[in-house]
């Protein structure tokens, strides 16, 4: 994303146009900042991120209560 695109993206997620799908997604509870960060990555970077997050979530799923 260019600097201008990032600026525009920030404006759009901060104040989504009323009635837009961006506004609907925000109201539903989607974290739009995560989408902007993902759009700023290359496809390869997104896949690396997905793989890394999946590895961590697997560890969390296998976690056990100590007390």
């Amino acid at each position, binding site marked *: 994303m260019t*600097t201008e695109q*990032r600026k525009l993206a920030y404006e759009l997620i901060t104040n989504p146009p009323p009635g837009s799908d961006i506004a609907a997604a925000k*109201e539903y509870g989607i974290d739009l900042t995560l989408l902007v*960060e993902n759009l700023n990555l290359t496809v390869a970077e997104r896949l690396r*991120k997905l793989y890394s997050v999946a590895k961590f*979530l697997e560890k969390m*799923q296998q*976690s056990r209560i100590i007390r």
Partner: protein
Amino acid sequence: MTPNSEELLTLLNKAEVEYVVIGGVALVAQGSARATFDLDVCYKRSKENIDKLCRALEPIHPRLRGAPDNLPFRFDTKTVVAGLNFTLATDLGDLDLLGEVAGLGAYDAVYNCSELRAVEKISCRVLSLDGLYRAKIAAGRDKDLEALKEIKGLKDLKERLGQE
């Protein structure tokens, strides 16, 4: 940047930051099959803890997530004291810091609804299924209400299986 939430938690532990893992990651720790990309934690709002938090995160360059690079932002004690919740991007991944959790309250209330869990080589406090249920009801957005069905199903399943 390759996210590494385990390393992020290790940083917080080493700095003795008082926090509880909440949100989607806590839900996964409780058995949910959903995936989430950011790490949400509730932190204690004492001056001492905020100092520790800021020092711990400084090396991984916390910045406002989704904001343009030239937006002025300095993650320090003064900023955290003046605010409450922060959505951050760091060198180790996305991190949401919450001073309070709707439906539960501030850190002490969240702590009382948490359990200490071993996650491979580290340990951290994680919000309980009951705590997650109360938080999702209070948040009340469609996304949260949708998650409630899974939490209730998971709770019922764990009870019937005699699991903690």
